[in-house]
């Protein structure tokens, strides 16, 4: 990890509200930032442990609903004449609860799904997201069903001299999302360069070999799902308290697909991948809004995606590193080529 580059990048992003104080721009950056955090969490599963989870929006939605419910308080009849009542909790506590609860759901899905792999895992994660959507639509006592939950309280922060402030301005929300995003990024960066992270990568590269050197598969896959789910839950919690209205649409498949596109186009299994992919695909629809017709926007979105995957199948970030390496020594064969040649040699 390149600390200097990272520090400059964070500094520039941090100063952005001063450089460009347009509230519309900051709000677009804020919502793109929330999707980027979700993409960072998906990258741990998809990019580092090599498991495709197509139900990642479920963790995002569980985080959003848990945080919203805890901060608003609820009472619900759970049968046998018992009512489960929870009083309204402070927003930060609700947010922390959301992270823990999604982590728990991550463990649950991990335990269930890692008995099966590949396509079966994909199907289980999709079904999980659908079930969550059905619950949020139909358990109206708890979730208000399709009406959604409204007037969710915002985050507040005690600032010296100013007292307790609600974080409702676009700049404040932007900084909040940036802080959580940087923490999520650092968490993944520290994880993947540690022994535990190496074990996860080993599972992606060669599961049988990983087991043979003593890496317990289920433990590390479950750990990766828990961490990944918890970060997605944090993104959901951020969404709930910044947009302040949620409805069952947070569980929609399209959100999962957006995360997958961000990760794959940016470069899965790289730290910068979800950030770069997220900035491009998170900002593009908004940036195009003023210039072209809505129908054309989606065409451009699709074409960009296809072009990236066609010409840079490993994603933008690895392609960028290849390019740097090529500038330094133009004679060397690009890594991808040599790998393909070797793969065919081994097979034959």
């Amino acid at each position, binding site marked *: 990890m390149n600390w200097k580059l990272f520090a400059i990048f964070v500094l520039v992003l941090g100063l952005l509200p001063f450089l460009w104080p347009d509230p519309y721009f900051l709000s677009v950056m804020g919502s793109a930032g929330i999707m980027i955090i979700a993409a960072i969490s998906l990258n741990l599963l998809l990019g580092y442990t090599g498991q495709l989870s197509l139900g990642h929006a479920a963790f995002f939605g569980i985080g959003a609903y848990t945080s919203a419910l805890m901060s608003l308080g609820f009472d619900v009849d759970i049968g046998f004449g018992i009512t489960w009542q929870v009083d309204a909790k402070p927003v930060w506590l609700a947010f922390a609860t959301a992270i823990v609860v999604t982590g728990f759901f991550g463990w649950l899905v991990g335990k269930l799904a890692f008995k099966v792999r590949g396509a079966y895992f994909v199907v289980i994660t999709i079904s999980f997201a659908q079930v969550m959507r059905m619950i949020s639509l139909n358990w109206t006592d708890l979730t208000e069903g399709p009406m959604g939950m409204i007037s969710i309280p915002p985050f507040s922060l005690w600032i010296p001299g100013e007292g307790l402030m609600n974080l409702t301005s676009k700049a404040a929300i932007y900084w909040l999302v940036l802080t959580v995003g940087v923490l999520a990024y650092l*968490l993944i960066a*520290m*994880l993947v360069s*540690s*022994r*535990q*992270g*190496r*074990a996860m*990568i*080993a599972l992606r*590269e*060669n599961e*049988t*070999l*990983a*087991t*043979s*050197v*003593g*890496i*317990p*598969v289920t433990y590390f896959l479950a*750990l990766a799902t828990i961490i990944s789910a918890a970060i997605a839950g944090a993104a959901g919690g951020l969404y709930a308290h910044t947009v302040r209205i949620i409805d069952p649409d947070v569980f929609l498949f399209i959100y999962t697909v957006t995360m997958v596109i961000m990760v794959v186009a940016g470069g899965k299994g790289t730290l910068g991948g979800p950030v770069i992919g997220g900035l491009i695909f998170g900002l593009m629809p908004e940036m195009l809004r003023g210039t072209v017709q809505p129908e054309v926007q989606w065409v451009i979105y699709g074409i960009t995606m296809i072009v990236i995957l066609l010409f840079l199948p490993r994603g933008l970030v690895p392609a960028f590193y290849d390019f740097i390496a090529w500038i330094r020594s133009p004679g060397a064969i690009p*890594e991808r080529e*040599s*790998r393909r040649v*070797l*793969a065919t040699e*081994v097979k034959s």
Partner: protein
Amino acid sequence: MTLAKQTPETASMVLSLEAVTMKIAGLVALDNVTFNIPAGEIVSLIGPNGAGKTTAYNVISGYMPPTSGKVRLFDEDITGHAPHSIATRGLVRSFQRTSVFDDQTVFDNLLTAYHLQGRASLVQSLLRLPKFRAEEKQLKARVWEMLDFLELRHRADERAASLSYGEQRILGVGIALAANPKILLLDEPAAGLNPSETDEFKAMIRRIGDSGVTVLLVEHDMHMVMSISDRIVVLNQGRVIAEGIPQEIQNNPAVIEAYLGSGVKRA
């Protein structure tokens, strides 16, 4: 013919199979297989194709639980244990084909393989606490030592997939060694190597044996088997048909029959 090198009953057995039977979809892949591997020897497991060698490996290393019988490692019953738990107890295997982490550098391949030597907890790792830093430094030093042992130091920063085939096989053995085995199972390590690579490989297996690690080898290259094995176990159609030192095995009629057939009698 004399039974030159009988293993004394008192010698400590690293690995023993007791009446192991393995049935796969009605086929008896291993039939009542019993043999012992004494400490510190290089033992080869040979036999014609389909004799059950790889199945025996899978049963020993925990990838397949046997239908019946027992596998003991240092007198502890490990039958049915998971592969990673058997690896923790000191038995590590290499694989026929997939033996390296392709997309990682040679250095990272070995660093990953030192997984079992690491103790730092998740929290210590994430917060980069002193324990993690010290451990990481120590593991990296061990990786350099291992690279010297494998004679791969000059390749440290290259992707494993870009190594030559012979070097990949050597790295594969290095990965297995990094798990600090007391007994190492090698599955056809010399398959596809050219003669000079085979010689280097043989030298490396000797170095491993000399360092006190017991080696169990499945191999088709008979020159290699005969020249480096202390003992040989011959399997045919799931049964042990002979066991002994290389000279005995070379002259054993049952072994010759298994490999060459007995001509008219079979027909």
